[in-house]
């Protein structure tokens, strides 16, 4: 590791690499082909287009959706003629006190902890990139990878609702319907997945090694 020269990135070397197939080519020859990858046909960009604004927009919509997702019921249970709505948190509390703490833990982790940590992590990444921070880039890269990897698992609760809707149609005995909270929650999961995908992790490193 030399101290003087900044790390050689594709951008500094006047190259661009294809996000879909990884082909590395000079920026000049990419321009000649209308910025389209000659191997796979994907559009070529040195960095995701408008990455920060897009990620912010998606992240803020996710945070807004997250409020009704938690306040509205995700399931409506009808038993002996009486209909009752359950929010995500009510479900967690119910299972905690009925002794099924592993279920409570799974739902709490997937539906409450993961989405909140994910939105907090994306906020932190966006702010640190906007402030041109060069603070611990490897740790921030690992945070991003975690966000990308773990986000889809929040879908568990949506699937649980689906399966219960399918199964609990026992006529007079009981029936379960999906509540409107489930729609918002599903929206949160999808929007945060899109937000993570629109964030360009290369921005974390762009400020590093610029000593000149």
């Amino acid at each position, binding site marked *: 590791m030399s101290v003087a020269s900044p*790390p050689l*990135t*594709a*951008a500094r*070397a006047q*190259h661009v*690499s294809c996000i*879909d*197939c*990884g*082909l*590395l080519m000079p920026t000049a020859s990419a321009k000649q082909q209308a910025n389209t990858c000659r*191997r*796979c*046909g994907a559009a070529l960009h040195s960095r995701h287009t408008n990455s920060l604004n897009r990620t912010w927009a998606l992240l803020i919509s996710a945070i807004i959706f997250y409020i009704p997702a938690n306040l509205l019921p995700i399931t409506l249970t009808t038993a002996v003629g009486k209909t009752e709505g359950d929010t995500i948190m009510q479900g967690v509390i119910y299972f905690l006190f*009925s002794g*099924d703490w*592993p*279920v409570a833990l*799974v*739902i709490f982790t997937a539906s409450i902890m993961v989405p909140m940590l994910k939105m907090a992590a994306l906020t932190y990444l966006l702010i640190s990139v906007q402030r041109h921070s060069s603070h611990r*880039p*490897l740790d921030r*890269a690992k945070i*991003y*990878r975690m966000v*990308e990897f773990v986000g*889809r*698992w929040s*879908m*568990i*609760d*949506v*699937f*649980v*609702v*689906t*399966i*219960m*809707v*399918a*199964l*609990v149609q*026992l*006529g007079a005995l*009981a029936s379960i*319907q*999906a509540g409107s909270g*489930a*729609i918002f929650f*599903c*929206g949160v999961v*999808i929007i945060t*997945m899109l937000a993570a*995908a629109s964030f360009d*992790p*290369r921005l*974390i*490193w*762009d400020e590093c090694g610029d000593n000149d």
Partner: protein
Amino acid sequence: MSITEALQPITVACPDCDLINQIPALAAGESANCVRCEATLSRNPPNAINRGIALTFTAIMLYAITCTLPFLSFGKAGIVAHTKLFSGIIGLYEQGMYFLAGVVSFTTVVVPVFMMSGLCYLLLPLRCDVRLPGATRVLRWILNLQPWNMVEIFMIGIIVAGVKLQKMAALEPGLGAWAFMLLIFVMAAIGASIEPRVLWERLESARCL
């Protein structure tokens, strides 16, 4: 055909941090990581194409079993509900939850079916170094849709729902559910045995048809 070729040395930019990396030749089973951010840059899974074909066919058979045989049964005292994989989607649709029905069918039916058929379309001809029309587009779609294939999350959902409902009545997994369980492992194995770089390089050198 069964001998895996070593991957040639190559210069790439890390997709996660843009650093230029010189990847040395990779023998079968070897992989290379970015020297700066530790992202996996390239792997050379042994016998990728043949393994990919075998696993994809297994996955298609398991998925067909999942769709046709009873999935779960639930109930007591003579009132038993039998469900298939699609019952939940149909149930949501009938309750007017079109958005949820759409998302669940996309992530557990449309994407997995597209990925399995797309892999067949790519891998079978590649075995004879032939590529079919639109092969590059199919591979791009497969790679980009990967996070939206949520069969393994659906499986965990089944287990959670089972524990949730056990107070009401017993939940019996049918043959379809067991096939689905196996499908999760086969899908994971497909992911591990297929490396985008290998497929791109093979596609590039394959004859067009």
